Structures are given as C-alpha cells and as structure tokens.
C-alpha cells in the first residue's frame, strides 16, 4: 500500500481479511513472510508496537468505555497528568485540538454512551489519530452504520487521505468500496487473488473475483438427487420479521418453506439475518411480525420447549453456549432437552440405566471418542463434542432439523461424517434447514438454496440452477432482490 491512498480489501467471509489486518496490527504473529513499513522490515509483537509505528485500527466492535467522556476515551492509556494526578482539562484541550485538525465535530466532554453509533466510530478514529496513526485500518466500519452515517464516514476517510494518511478499509459491501477506494485488493481463501484500481472495475467483476470462477471442486460428493417429490410442508413463513441483538431489524420480511425430505440451504454473508432466522424457528427469539406455520402450529409465541415437542431439532452455531453444558457428563448432555421422556426418565425420576444404554449406543454409532458416557463433556475435543450434539439431535428423530454452521472448526473426517448424517436424516424424511457461511457446504448438501442479504431473501435456487457467481452476487446484494 502506498502513502496517502485508500485501499479497500474485499472478500467473502473467512477469506482472511481480518486475519491479515490483525497481523498488521500486531494481534497475530505471522507464521512466515515479512512485513515492511517504509521499506523497513518490521515485526510487531503486540498492538503496542504497531501503534508506536503509526498504525491504528478501528475494530468492528468498538473498544470504548461507555461511561467515560469522549476526551477520557481518547486519552485512555496515555493520559496527561499534572503532579501525578489526571489532568482532565489538558485532555479536553488536546482532544479538541486533534478534532479540529482533522475536521471532526465532537464534544470532548460528552459521555460516549450518549453518542450515536456513527459518532462513537468517530471517537475511535480520533483515538487512533491522537496516537499519531499514519495508517488507519477500519474493519467493516459501515456494518453498524445507517446509510447517512456511512456517507459521512466516506467523507471522513477521503479527508484523511487528502491530508496524507493511508486508510485501509475492510468490507464486503462492494458498492461503497467502489465509491470511496483508490485501489481494491480481493482476497479469497487466504490469498490476495487480484488488485484492481477502483476506477477500472465494476461490482460484477469484483463479485466474480471474490466468489471464484466455479472451478473448484465441491468438498464432498454431491448427494443423490431426490427421486421422490418433496413431502409435506413442515415450515412455511410469510413476511417474517425479527429484531437482532443490537436492536435493529435483522429479518425484514422473509418468505420461505421447508418440506419433508429435503435439505434447504441458507446462503449469505455473516450477519444478514440467518442466525436470527434459526433462533426464531427454535423458539429462542420472538418474531416481531409475519406469520408462519411450523409443524402444525403457529410460529408466533413459540417457546423452545414447544419447538422440541413439535419435533424441531436444533444444532446451534454456538456449541458451548447453546448446545451443551460442558461441566455435565456426556450422558447428561445426551439427555439434555429429552430428559423428560423415556429412555431418559421414568416418571419424575432420571432413568440412569436407560440413559447409559442409549448413550453407549450413540457413542458407538457416531464414533465419539472416548466412548465413555460418564466423562465430563469438556474433556472431549471440539469435534467429538459436536458429534455428541449431532447424535443427540438426530436420535430424537426430528421432523424439522435446524442446523447452523454444523462443521465449523471440525477436521475433514468429522465434516464428512456430519454431512453423511444430515443426508441420511433427509433420506429418512426429515426436513433440514441448513445455515452455513461456507458456500461450498451449502451447495454440496442442499436441494434448494435461499440467499439472504440484509434480512431479506434475495435469491432462490433449485439444485440444477446452482451458479456460484450468481449466488455470490445475490449474497452481496449487487442485484435487485427477486427470485431467479
């Protein structure tokens, strides 16, 4: 990258954008390769080194203390002192000076939690500049901003570049990247596959570069085409809306259907409402609007217990948080959620014998190692923990199985096994809703795919219509919403 330019780094999730920036900022150490700054090879052992060399980073999630003022946040870590005491007056003056120099309008005495998200981001930028950053890295800066705030940020970035700073913008929003960047580097699977001048390219070309030209082989062999027609409708939602954890709408009117005996994939870049969809379907998140039928009952007001009773299985994304209790034993985790029914219970009592026998059968069938029902789950490797989850959910013979990122962090063998089990369930008549950020996984397993972008369905593809480039464009919202 050159001084005084705005470089954008784009790529799919998991392409390595954030890892690369974390190396630049000293959070990660490179395994090999050389980092050069102003022609000098450098090695950052920690962000402290990177800051000292004039590199600043604005994280996607702000690192601010909400109850402190703007000035206090900016000087945090290098506070001006007088006689060993904090000199807040000088802090305010210094911060005002920095704001004035770069044209930011911020009230140094305002408490950070009273500011809008866009202003908080400016505080982060001022914080980096105040420490003398010459190179500023912004990781997905517009993910949390309104369109107006995004435009404002674009002006701020251009202004910094005009003053001789270098800005690195990480994003997967192609339109805004094209509008603001000088050069664009495209990353795919940990490599920089292309570097283009923003003026010489289009969103279409970038999307093709990001997704790849479809030359890669699927990770696992394609499933046999389902000969029989899909079965009864298990899930049918219309106009589904729900709010995300940040209080903003995460689902903005989703229509979709899942039938018995099919795997329906949800493709999309992280944070476009897929997670919230899975939570609504399993009763973990209330829907705010829309209607739906789920296994013969209404979707609104669904509780996790009702979802289970109706026959919804759930393999959640966040295994340790949602799927298992790692301080409990393997057999107790196998019973979790089904502990009120045989063979796990006899009346109000736990059926120790039944639970032990069923757990033994499952540890053999799913090759859980060690095959010891009594050992605490935390003693198992991540892959084996996931096998326990998959075994439990499939053993309950769900009619609808909601699966989120089922193979994240698993090794190749475990991935193949999980995929085989999902297909087996499908062939036995279970409807599977598969949410994955790994497009290859979605395409390898699914009979149909819905593409999600910003809480809406922007594409629907049948298996024979799969086209990675078209899917990729829809995942990035570069075409108007509509059905293929």
């Amino acid at each position, binding site marked *: 990258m050159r001084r005084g330019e705005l470089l954008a780094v784009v790529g799919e999730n998991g392409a390595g954008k954030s890892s690369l920036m974390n190396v630049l900022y000293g959070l990660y150490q490179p395994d090999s390769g050389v980092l050069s700054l102003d022609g000098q090879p450098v090695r950052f052992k920690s962000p402290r080194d990177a800051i000292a060399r004039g590199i600043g980073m604005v994280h996607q999630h702000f690192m601010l203390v909400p109850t402190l003022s703007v000035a206090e946040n900016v000087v945090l870590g290098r506070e001006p002192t007088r006689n060993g005491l904090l000199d807040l007056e000088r802090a305010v003056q210094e911060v005002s000076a920095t704001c004035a120099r770069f044209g930011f309008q911020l009230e140094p005495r305002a408490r950070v939690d009273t500011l809008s998200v866009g202003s908080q981001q400016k505080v982060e930028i001022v914080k980096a500049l105040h420490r003398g950053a010459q190179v500023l890295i912004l990781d997905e800066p517009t993910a949390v901003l309104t369109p107006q705030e995004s435009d404002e940020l674009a002006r701020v970035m251009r202004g910094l570049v005009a003053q001789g700073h270098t800005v690195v913008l990480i994003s997967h929003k192609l339109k805004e990247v094209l509008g603001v960047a000088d050069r664009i580097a495209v990353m795919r699977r940990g490599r920089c596959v292309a570097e283009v001048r923003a003026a010489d390219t289009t969103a279409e070309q970038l999307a093709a570069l990001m997704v790849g030209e479809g030359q890669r082989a699927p990770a696992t062999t394609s499933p046999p085409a389902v000969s029989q027609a899909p079965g009864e409708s298990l899930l049918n939602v219309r106009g589904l809306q729900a709010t995300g954890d940040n209080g903003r709408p995460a689902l903005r009117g989703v229509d979709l259907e899942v039938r018995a005996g099919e795997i329906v994939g949800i493709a999309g870049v992280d944070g476009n409402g897929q997670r919230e969809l899975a939570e609504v379907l*399993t*009763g*973990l998140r209330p829907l705010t609007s829309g209607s739906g039928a789920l296994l013969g009952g209404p979707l609104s007001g669904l*509780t*996790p*217990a*009702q*979802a*289970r*009773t109706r026959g919804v299985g*759930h393999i*959640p994304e966040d295994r340790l*948080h*949602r*799927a*298992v*209790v*790692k*301080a*409990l034993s393997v057999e*107790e985790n196998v*019973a*979790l*959620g089904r*502990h*009120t029914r045989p063979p796990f*219970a006899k009346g*109000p*009592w*736990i059926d120790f014998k039944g639970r032990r026998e069923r757990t033994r059968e499952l540890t053999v069938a799913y090759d859980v190692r060690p095959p010891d029902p009594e*050992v*605490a789950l*935390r*003693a198992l490797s991540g892959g084996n923990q996931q096998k326990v989850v998959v075994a439990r959910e499939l053993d309950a013979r769900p009619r609808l199985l909601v699966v989120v990122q089922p193979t994240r962090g698993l090794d190749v063998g475990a991935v193949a096994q999980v995929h085989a089990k999902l297909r087996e369930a499908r062939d036995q008549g279970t409807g599977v809703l598969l949410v994955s950020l790994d497009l290859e996984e979605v395409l390898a397993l699914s009979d149909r795919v819905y593409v999600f972008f910003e809480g809406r369905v922007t594409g629907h593809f049948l298996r024979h219509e799969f086209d990675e480039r078209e899917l990729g464009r829809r995942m990035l919202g570069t075409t108007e919403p509509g059905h293929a």
Partner: protein
Amino acid sequence: MPERVRQMLPSVLSVLLALGVCWALIALTLEPGTATDAYLQMLWGGIGNWPAYLDGAAATVITRPLGESAMKAAILTLTGLSVAVAFKVGLFNIGAQGQMLLGALAAAVMGAQVSLPGVLHVPAALLGAALAGAAWAGIAGLLRIYRGVHEVISTIMLNWVALSLVDNWLVVGPLRGAAEGGQSITGTAEIQATAVLPRLLGEGSRLNLGFPLALAAALAVWVWLTRTRSGFETRAVGLGAEAARAAGIPVARRMGLAMALAGAMAGLAGAVLVLGTEGRYPGTLGAPYGFDGIAIALIGNNHPLGATVSALFFGVLRAGGTRMQLLGVHKSFPELIQGLALLFVAGRMVWLALLRRRNVAPAASAEVPRA
C-alpha cells in the same frame, strides 16, 4: 485418584491447614502444650468426654456435649443447604440469615398462637417457617428473574430489612409476649408444649428432632438434585443457563423454585432454633447462623452431603469450643478455624493445581464458584 475424591481434597486440606494455623497461633501466644490440650478439650466438648465416661462417669458426659453439637450442626446444615441449593441453580444466596429470621418468627408465632394436636403442631410450625423463608428468598428470586437485580445485592439488603422488620419492630411491638407473673419479657410468647421439638436423648441432652430432620433434608435435597428430572434441570440451568433454555428447560421457573427451596431451608433452620432450643423468638436472634451457612456450603463444595459433613464438623468444633476457655483460650477459635478454612477453600484452584502436578489428572477441571 478418583475424581470424586479429588474434588473433596481441597476442602479437607483447607480444614486441616486451618486447624494447624490456629494451633500454631495458640502455641505462640500461650504454650504448645496448652494448644494441644485446648484441641483435646474442644474434641471432648464436641463429641463427648469418652475418657471420663470409660472411667465410670455418668452417660451425660457423652450425651450433653453431643446434644450441643447436634443442635448447632442441625442449624448449620440447614443454612448450608440453603446456600448450596441456590448455588446449584447458579445463584449466590447471601440472604440465608434474613430468611432464617423470618422462618424463626413464623415458627414462634405458629408455636405460640395456634393450637393443634401434638402430631400436627410441629409439622405445621415447620411448614410455616419453611414457607416464610421461601417467600423471603422468593422476593430476591423474582427480582432477579423479572428485573435482573443481582441476587447478591438483593439478598444482602433483604437481610437488613428482615432484621429491622422482625427484631426491631414485630418482636418488640405487635408480637411481643404478654408479661407473665409481673415479669416483662422480651421476645414473643412462649411456644406451646405441643410445638416443642421432642428431645431424643432425655432431658440431660438438648439433642432434638431437629437434628434428624436436618439430615433428612440434606438427603432429600441430594436425591432431588441427582436423581430427578427437575433436579437435573436445576443443575443444567446453574451450569449453562443458555444451553438449558435452548433445550426447552423453563429457566426462570427453575431459578425461582430453587431460590424458594433455599429460603425454605433457611426458614427451617430458624424453626429448629425456636422450636428446639429457644422456645420462643427471643428479643434478638443474635447468632449469625445464616452467614455461617455460606462458609459451610463453600467448604462442603456446594454439595448437599458435603455441606452436611462440613456442618457436622463445625458443629462439633463450635460446641466444644466453649470448653477451651477452661485453659484460657478464647472460645471464638472455632469460628476462626471456620473462617480460615473458608479462606483456604477459596483458593480451590490453587489446591487443584497443586494436586494436578503430582498426579496425572484427567483433563477435567473443577467447577469454579461464581461470586
């Protein structure tokens, strides 16, 4: 070494270390011989003076100390259970003291002002005390569930509310016992004879029905937690609330009921104190058994049976501690031992790390108390 034994070792070693430190303190301030003698006196004062008995003394040299120990152990067991049960669902109940005061008051009122046949009076008074304690703890439980108020804060504050309500108003005001024979009394009226917990070893010993009752409560809580569906749900909520919610477990109901059960245990402790030894709610219920429950539970590793063993041990020490005074050693040493043991148990992870270095231990680590 089996995992179960390994889990117990930090508590056992902490208690031994506390005993050692206190011995050294007495030895340094007085004489080493005195320290050993004091410990022996404490032992005989707690479990009965067996040497004297074998030399031909009356059986009361055994039964009287045992009665004192059992009385204290019963109350400590119940308050320890109160803290341990809440802990299992992931809540830290600092409010056993306040819940115990309410339970004691309910038992005193039921015992004095309700007339029932003997077989019903004691159970009714116990039930009333349990419900009073449960209701008091339930306030903290509901505040936590519906308003997100941290139970440590609310239970501490409710302790003070209970103290003011009971000791400073009800007992000296509306519920104050009538003057008898020209003598004005403090506290509530004397309970009726039918409400007194029967003594089990004759009049020479204060061992009463409260002791087997406390042991039965501990056993019941243990069976409930380990053998029943609802006990399993309670533990699952305590160890992973979000996973429990995703599994369809009613997290709020489990928290509320466990907190109520915790309060019921503390309430029973108050009832055992009033119906077993005091005979009424005295002017003030000075003994901080509710706060001792925190130490008892933590030293017992928050296990119902562990808390029971720890209550038995410290019941013996407390009862025997008074006899140390014969040698000029202050009777508060048992409490010092308890406090030091708690301090050492708090370093549980250090103990486990020390133990792990010596043994090829499984990858599992201990359950860390959340405070």
